[in-house]
């Protein structure tokens, strides 16, 4: 798709994953053991033949994100006429009032202006879904709309997706407005922070937003434009998760444990690329009991794993039991330790405490490098 370049925005200002975000932006969160969340938007673009991709680094502590994306070579992007660029901005700190997507675009405006493609596809780094942007662009072109937005219809908006926007549509899928999900109704069209429009219109919206407010966001100026512009919604089908808080991060991964759900996200003809670490296969020893789980490579398993997601290089010692948990890479679950409904961050050692049990509604969290 020579017609469009891609922009991957950082997590919205509404996103707060308090503990985990201390270590990395949501885009760099581990997902299903061997991926990071940003692998999904970049792979979506790569598979849609978008080979010029801007990744906005807009959060605290971007080290692991930058390291992971690197040159972008592993995303199967043409190494000559394609590239992944990481774009920074001065105000990119979560607690900074001026840390908005519009300000980040403004600070990199020359780069956007120089892009030769007439269209732009904008998608966020904190949502997990599969989408063919090529098909979406065709829909956009055929409709003649000024802006096409992607949304996901859910009947779960009262308890979930609370830190996202919703799209209000008329019967012809015209967008009437965009507003915060207030959790007042079950059925909502969750806005996936994904836009297709002409590059020129995008530039125009950036400058208009700056005139309204110095802390305006793209979603706000688009909402303001609903009467003047032809803005249409397209429904996304398939798996969708918005990682806006700790619970949604945990929940999204637990949903993957239904293999049929995972199959929807991972289709054979739609590879999700990631960076290899050259880990060896996983070794299951005498005493291992594993059911309904995704296990990454490089693990050593001598204990029990049920309904869990295990990252790379995790040690599950003799007598250890892991249930309904997400264990990030290189952690050690010691002998006879029971871990239930937890997210255990990278390099943690659970060796002293014999029981770490929380409820599924309020999963527990163990910090990176902690010894417990």
């Amino acid at each position: 798709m020579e017609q469009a370049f891609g922009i991957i925005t950082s997590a919205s200002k509404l996103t707060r994953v308090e503990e985990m975000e201390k270590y990395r932006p949501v885009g760099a969160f581990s997902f299903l053991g061997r991926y990071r969340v940003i692998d999904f938007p970049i792979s979506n673009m790569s598979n849609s033949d978008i080979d010029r991709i801007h990744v906005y680094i807009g959060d605290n502590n971007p080290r692991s994100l930058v390291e992971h994306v690197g040159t972008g070579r592993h995303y199967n992007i043409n190494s000559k006429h394609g590239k992944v660029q990481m774009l920074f901005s001065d105000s990119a700190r979560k607690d900074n009032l001026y840390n908005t997507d519009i300000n980040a675009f403004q600070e990199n405006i020359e780069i956007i202006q120089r892009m030769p493609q007439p269209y732009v596809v904008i998608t966020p780094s904190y949502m997990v879904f599969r989408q063919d942007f090529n098909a979406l662009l065709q829909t956009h072109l055929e409709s003649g709309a000024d802006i096409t937005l992607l949304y996901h219809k859910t009947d779960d908006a009262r308890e979930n997706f609370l830190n996202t926007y919703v799209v209000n549509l008329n019967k012809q899928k015209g967008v009437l407005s965009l507003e915060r999900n207030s959790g007042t109704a079950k059925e909502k069209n969750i806005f996936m922070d994904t836009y297709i429009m002409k590059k020129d219109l995008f530039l125009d919206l950036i400058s208009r937003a700056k005139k309204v407010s110095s802390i305006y966001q793209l979603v706000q100026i688009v909402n303001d434009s609903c009467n003047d512009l032809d803005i249409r919604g397209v429904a996304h089908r398939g798996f969708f998760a918005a990682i806006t808080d700790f619970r949604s991060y945990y929940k999204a991964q637990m949903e993957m444990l239904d293999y049929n759900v995972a199959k929807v996200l991972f289709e054979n003809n739609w590879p999700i690329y990631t960076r290899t670490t050259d880990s060896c296969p996983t070794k299951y020893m005498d005493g291992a009991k594993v059911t309904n789980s995704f296990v990454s490579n490089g693990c050593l398993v001598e204990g029990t794993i049920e309904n869990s997601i295990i990252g790379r290089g995790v040690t599950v010692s003799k007598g250890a039991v892991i249930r309904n948990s997400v264990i990030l890479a290189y952690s050690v679950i010691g002998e006879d330790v029971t871990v239930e409904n937890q997210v255990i961050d990278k390099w943690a050692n659970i060796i002293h405490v014999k029981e770490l049990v929380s409820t599924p509604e309020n999963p527990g969290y163990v910090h990176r490098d902690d010894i417990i």
Partner: protein
Amino acid sequence: MQSEMLAMILAGGRGSRLKDLTSKVAKPAVSFGGKYRIVDFPLSNCANSGIDVVGVLTQYESVLLNSYVAYSGRWGLDTKDSGVFVLPPMERADAALDVYRGTADAISQNIGFVDNYDPEYLLILSGDHIYKMNYDKMLQYHKEKGADATIAVIGVPMKEASRFGIMNTGEDGQIVEFEEKPEHPKSNLASMGIYIFNWKLLRRILVADMKNPDSSHDFGKDVIPELLREGKKLYAWQFKGYWKDVGTIDSLWEANMDLLDPGNALNLDDHAWKIYTEDVTALPQYIGPNAHIDVAYITQGCRVEGDVTKSVLFTNSQVCPGAKVIDSVIMPGAVVEEGAVVTRALVAPNVHIGKNAVVGSKDSAEITLVAKRVKGDE
């Protein structure tokens, strides 16, 4: 361009004792250990030993092998002045196209390639062994001894020594005699087919060997004996560690089974000496709700919904509900369908074992190679 030591991997053999497993691919490209190919071992060893330039001499069914090794970035050998070079036999201005007539001839035909790098030493490796070795340590030994050539050797059980090329050495490790498959071995130090030569010397020997009509152009049979005849200083460098020639279905199966051993000396989980391989796009392994896993080595892309006992599952292989895999090796993309039972078998890549089919047996003396689809209940 100058390199102190260049490596040449002999990867031209068919490995016909691997039967149908090598009917379409060369032996070095055969899968091993869940996610690797055999040639990943010498290539990763080179990369980890600080060798920048590696020539891979290919001949038999080389299309897949050539494209596989040419992607030098897999082993980190893609920096400036480094690389993996595929060297099949080719037509040249001064010589007619000829196949590689032997291991030594493969190098002889590529003297020009080696000369480009003007190396002090040439390391000769074989593309069909499983082991981890620091070739730099061997080079240090070679230099310390002031050797003309150094041969890596490994102690083998005395009763098996007559199957190998045996080095008889003096007390300081100097080789006094080389015997190919001796009936009455005097030592148990077997040649690993890994040699370091001083390039200038080897070059002279090879030029002469090329023209010798009585030569079989083989390192073991011709080059080493010639060096000994000339009274050159040949040393044996004793390697201690895991080493396996995976030349037969049984030994390939066995080497895979070795990975299940908790004390396995190969240790592929060594972060200081990783074995690098192709990066495939695959989900993490999924172990289903009714799966039973009892001692196994499993890699990404696998989907296990049946029972797996003492087995190695390769990339993207599948064990369906109710299926049983026991003491077996399931190669990439192979599928064991519902209710099928696989025992003491090696299932070749992408082969399907049909519903309720039974292959292999726990009492069979030999490992069953399953290289074709096995029909099951329709």
